[in-house]
């Protein structure tokens, strides 16, 4: 039973991990704590829902659109509301992203109402049985997507010029500017990329949980905690932190009490901060 629960926790954990990854990416490149990160996930979910369920478009067409649209929204929000406050007092920046969160989540609520929607699985078929553990195909898709995405992002950041620009800007914005890097453009593209990653998380999560307009903030807080547990600023830390939170959630929900699920997430956060404040995988700038 333990392994069964842990495996199904990994699937949700993968989604948290991706959200945390995008969140950390924005923090690293722009020093912005983006409270609207969860809303990019919700946008992707609703785009997928509308195109796939309502309009009946095939998945191969729907998935890229559902990732692209949050990326565009991310790019646009950076240009319009985030750029003017980059470098301002932290409280101002936080307030702007909270304002953004309110706008995006309420727009979703106006369009789709407050009720939850169910989304069909991305892949049909009976659950597989691996070493006596029943694994739904859906979970395998999620895990595989995360691995592919993580490897792809690693390649992107190490080998491509965009990735190098992104890393240069996160290491030192001033120096990057002196080296001839267009910092503003890089930050905007970083926003688009991280919103796109959140979009992938949204597409993967949609069949696992019910899609609803109010999901953004809870998802954000989960992945925020995941990022801190993993070591804030570290990409690998964000991924592992997300997985840990997903698994822990499931185990606590079953073995202790589903009412106290959230309490335990927060307690783990406080415990990690007390015992190992730099996180599990400390980030070195």
């Amino acid at each position, binding site marked *: 039973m333990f392994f069964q629960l842990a495996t199904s926790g990994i699937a949700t954990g993968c989604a948290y991990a991706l959200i945390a990854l995008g969140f950390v990416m924005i*923090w690293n490149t722009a020093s912005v*704590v983006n409270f609207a990160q969860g809303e990019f996930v919700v946008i992707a979910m609703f785009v997928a829902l509308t195109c796939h369920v309502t309009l009946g478009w095939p998945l191969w067409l729907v998935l890229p659109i559902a990732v692209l649209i949050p990326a565009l929204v991310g790019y646009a929000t950076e240009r319009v*509301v985030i750029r*003017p*406050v980059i470098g*301002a*007092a*932290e*409280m*101002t920046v*936080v*307030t*702007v992203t*909270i*304002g*953004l*969160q*309110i*706008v995006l989540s*309420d*727009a979703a*609520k*106006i369009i789709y109402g407050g009720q939850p929607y169910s989304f069909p699985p991305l892949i049909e078929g009976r659950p597989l049985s691996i070493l006596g553990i029943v694994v739904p195909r859906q979970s395998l898709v999620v895990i595989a997507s995360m691995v592919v995405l993580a490897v792809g992002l690693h390649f992107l950041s190490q080998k491509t010029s965009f990735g190098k620009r992104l890393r240069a800007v996160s290491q030192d914005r001033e120096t990057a500017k002196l080296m001839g890097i267009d910092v503003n453009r890089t930050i905007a593209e970083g926003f688009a990329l991280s919103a796109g990653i959140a979009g992938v998380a949204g597409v993967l999560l949609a069949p696992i949980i019910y899609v609803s307009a109010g999901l953004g*903030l809870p998802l954000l*807080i989960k992945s*925020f*905690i995941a990022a*801190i547990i993993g070591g*804030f600023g570290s990409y690998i830390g964000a991924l592992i932190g997300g997985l840990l939170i997903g698994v822990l959630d499931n185990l606590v929900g079953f073995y202790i009490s589903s*009412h*106290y699920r*959230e*309490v335990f997430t*927060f*307690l783990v*956060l*406080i415990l990690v*901060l*007390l015992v190992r*404040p730099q996180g599990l995988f400390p980030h070195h700038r």
Partner: protein
Amino acid sequence: MSRHHPFYLAAILAAIVIPPFLSDYSLHLVIMVVIFAILTLSLNLISGYGGLISLGHAGFFLIGSYTSALLSVYQGWPFWLSMPTAILLTATSGLLLGFPALRWTGHFLAVITIAFGSIAQLLSVNWVFLTNGIDGVSSIPRPPLPGISLTSNVNYYYFVLICLAFIVYLMMRLVASGFGRALRAIKDDETAAACMGIDVAVTKVSAFVISAAIAGFAGALYAHYIRFLNPDSFSLDVSIRIFMMMIIGGTGSIAGSILGSFVVYVLPEVLRPLQDYYYLIWGVIVILVMLFLPGGLISLGSVLRAKMAARRDKLDPQVGSTETLS
């Protein structure tokens, strides 16, 4: 400060004279504005003056409300005993939360305080034996006062207004005191403050304790006003709302906190004809205020004056203006 005196005087006069003529619903709104103003002031102490972000003030508000409510409903304690106990208990919780604040600032502290607020709310839902869970606590009595019945909302309004006046006085004294200066010094530069002989740890923790105590006081006032409590009134949204009140009004300004509470509480009511769209528009307003008035609404006057002075300088480059310097 002196320049604004007519405005402040008019606002105070309006706060005293107008409420008896308001409708029941408007009166309810202004009572809530006053209670939230006390809460916002408590947040302003640690965030505005101390630079420590807290998104968990609903937690203190909850502890204050529930303590006073439970003691008076189930133990039969009078308000004048249950309220100080509520303050004492919230102050203790502020002490607990003050220690993490020693080590973490910025977004780390924001998450820790979110965690605190959420744990408090989840426990109030799940500890049914204590809080009655989601069914809540009902028939909380109004505070007894010899000669005056606080069951009338107009009287209760004046009661909370006097409480607010007391808290404003307290805050003004605190901010002007050595403690207030130490707090602002820490906000500007912690290391430099420590070098000047300021005990950073004691100052930060005391700021948290005082802030929590004031929030607990607001909680008690709320519980005995609304007379029914359930965990819904203390969600993360409430913490965010208090934070917004402080930021929109103006961080580090007492008048700003009160203005912010008024605007944030009353604006949704003004926007109500827009129905579903009002929360969205509220979000847009928040962003616009931050983009164009990062000092909050309270800075509107000085920003406009600086703009006008700059314009005058442009028109007449011979004459330098002193306005922009002040």
